[in-house]
């Protein structure tokens, strides 16, 4: 484990990316204490402060670091709270998709026969068209709301985990240590959860990292299209959408700053995922 971190830290870019991700998560968690304003408190908004550029000192008596949006919200505060929601959606959707996908993938690998065929056909079918298509349809059918959106995100993403888990579990299943466990004999439940699962976890975590980033951007896309969360809980995607109509009028900050936050977050998570992948892939190891 110590070696793992030393090797990770040798890649400066990946180390920086990890620090960025940690900083984003930290600020998102601490948003209520850091943010100068509660962006959900509609009573605290002053329309006179709307669409002010960065640095403007509004009626609250403090400088709006990143300016304000169309409702006079402090953009910095809105981004912090938006980050909170985006990360929350990404992490919850990622975790649920990983659990569902891993269980299905391992079940397919372990059961074989028609169960394997049925599960993997559906997974392959789903992987053959863009995830956003399915998410769009589901959101349209289920309606708006946090849990509906999470269901849509999970449905769109579990297939990646299922495929990874299936591949890894199929490979592990053929290894001698699994055969040795079956030869003892140990129960199938024990073989799956105590022997196969721990060895399937590393590739799943790598995929999971990248899928969290994908979930965040998928959620942002849906929110940007107005199909995501209700306007009372603005995520980064909705902040971008809200500012979009002012782009042409020169008030670019309303969209650009949430956009930068989103991009930096996604790139950083992907860089962390890339490094984890490189480090856990024996073929890339010297």
């Amino acid at each position, binding site marked *: 484990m110590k070696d793992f971190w030393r090797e990770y830290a040798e890649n400066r870019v990946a180390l920086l990316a990890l620090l960025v991700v940690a900083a984003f998560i930290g600020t998102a968690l601490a948003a209520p204490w850091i943010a100068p304003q509660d962006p959900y408190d509609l009573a605290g908004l002053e329309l006179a402060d709307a669409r002010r550029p960065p640095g403007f000192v509004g009626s609250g008596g403090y400088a709006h670091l990143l300016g304000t949006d169309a409702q006079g919200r402090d953009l910095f505060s809105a981004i912090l709270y938006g980050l909170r929601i985006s990360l929350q959606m990404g992490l919850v959707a990622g975790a649920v998709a990983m659990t569902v996908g891993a269980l299905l993938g391992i079940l397919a690998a372990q059961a074989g026969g028609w169960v394997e065929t049925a599960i993997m056909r559906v997974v392959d079918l789903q992987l053959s068209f863009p995830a956003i298509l399915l998410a769009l349809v589901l959101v349209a059918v289920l309606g708006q709301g946090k849990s509906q959106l999470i269901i849509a995100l999970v449905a769109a993403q579990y297939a990646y985990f299922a495929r990874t888990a299936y591949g890894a579990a199929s490979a592990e299943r053929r290894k001698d240590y699994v055969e*040795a466990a079956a030869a003892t004999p140990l129960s199938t439940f024990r073989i799956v959860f105590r022997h196969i699962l721990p*060895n399937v976890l590393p590739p799943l975590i790598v995929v999971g990292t990248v899928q969290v980033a994908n979930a965040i951007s998928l959620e942002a896309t849906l929110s940007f299209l107005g199909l995501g969360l209700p306007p009372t809980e603005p995520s980064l995607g909705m902040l971008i959408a809200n500012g979009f109509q002012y782009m042409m009028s020169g008030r670019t900050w309303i969209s650009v700053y949430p956009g930068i936050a989103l991009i930096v977050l996604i790139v950083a998570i992907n860089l962390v995922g890339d490094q984890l992948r490189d480090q856990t892939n024996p073929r890339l190891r010297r």
Partner: protein
Amino acid sequence: MTGPDDILVAEALTRRFDPRLTIGDRIAGALGAPVERRPLRAVTDVSFAIRRGETLGLVGESGCGKSTLGRMVAGILPQTSGRVTLDGKPVMARGRKTTTRIQTVFQDPFASLNPRRRIGETIAEGPIAHGIVTRAGAPAFIAEWLARVGLDPAVAQRFPHQFSGGQRQRVAIARALAMRPDLLVCDEPVASLDVSIQAQILNLFLELRQALGLTCLFISHDLSVVRHVADRVAIMYLGRIVEVGPAARIHAAPRHPYARALLDSVPKLRLDATSVTFRPIAGELPSPLAPPAGCAFHPRCPRASDLCRRERPDLVAGEDGAALACHHPEPAA
């Protein structure tokens, strides 16, 4: 050929592997493409018995079916037909192993130990699951087994990657023996080890076999290793046993031409400076997908006749647990 001393009996064991056709294969086949549909007969109609306390060596070249046979005896792989019984009770039922009295040591100690489990857990997992030891008693139990296989009991908390190949094989042996088996199946247990380490593991095996009164099925491609540890030797060719007999006799005077040729092929340590002439077996191993008609060895056999091309010789039991499947065996010494 079964007797009252027999602990394990295999009767007419056969294992076929049918090709798994994908939808693509089926479509290609329907369109006239050559698709392999022939089943692979890994083991065909093999019968033998192991007596209590003896070690039966199983020898053959790659693809002869010795590992498949070993896996069926060990209760890992279900047979296609025939049966394996331990003291009269089937080893497997409905695809699952029913006994803990047979344990296995695998060839590759790098693959046979779970890389993410501490070796202490690996040793004690089976015994705890089957009530041989309590969870509370496990640390002492693990320490005892580590000591018995010549490892420091303090290493119980380590992971497999912290050990050398020989040490891992010791762990694998401890894991198998901690289940208190009556029969130990060893599938090429020293094949992947260096010569000096191989000697250590063979010595450990001999020592524990005696101390625990084990019965063994010892599978190896290395005739000198089998000669060293086995009481009786069975030689396989293309899925069938062609000759069985006492180890010393098989080694000194094999009667099946394949057994003879195999022994002649093994490079001997030459201590004199005389030049060496090899007497290699002509030809290649035939594919088990399309074994030759009659005796499978006839295309490579110097003694083959028309009879061999036509009719497959049966394995005929002789004295002292010996058996032979050949129309024209070499004369008995």
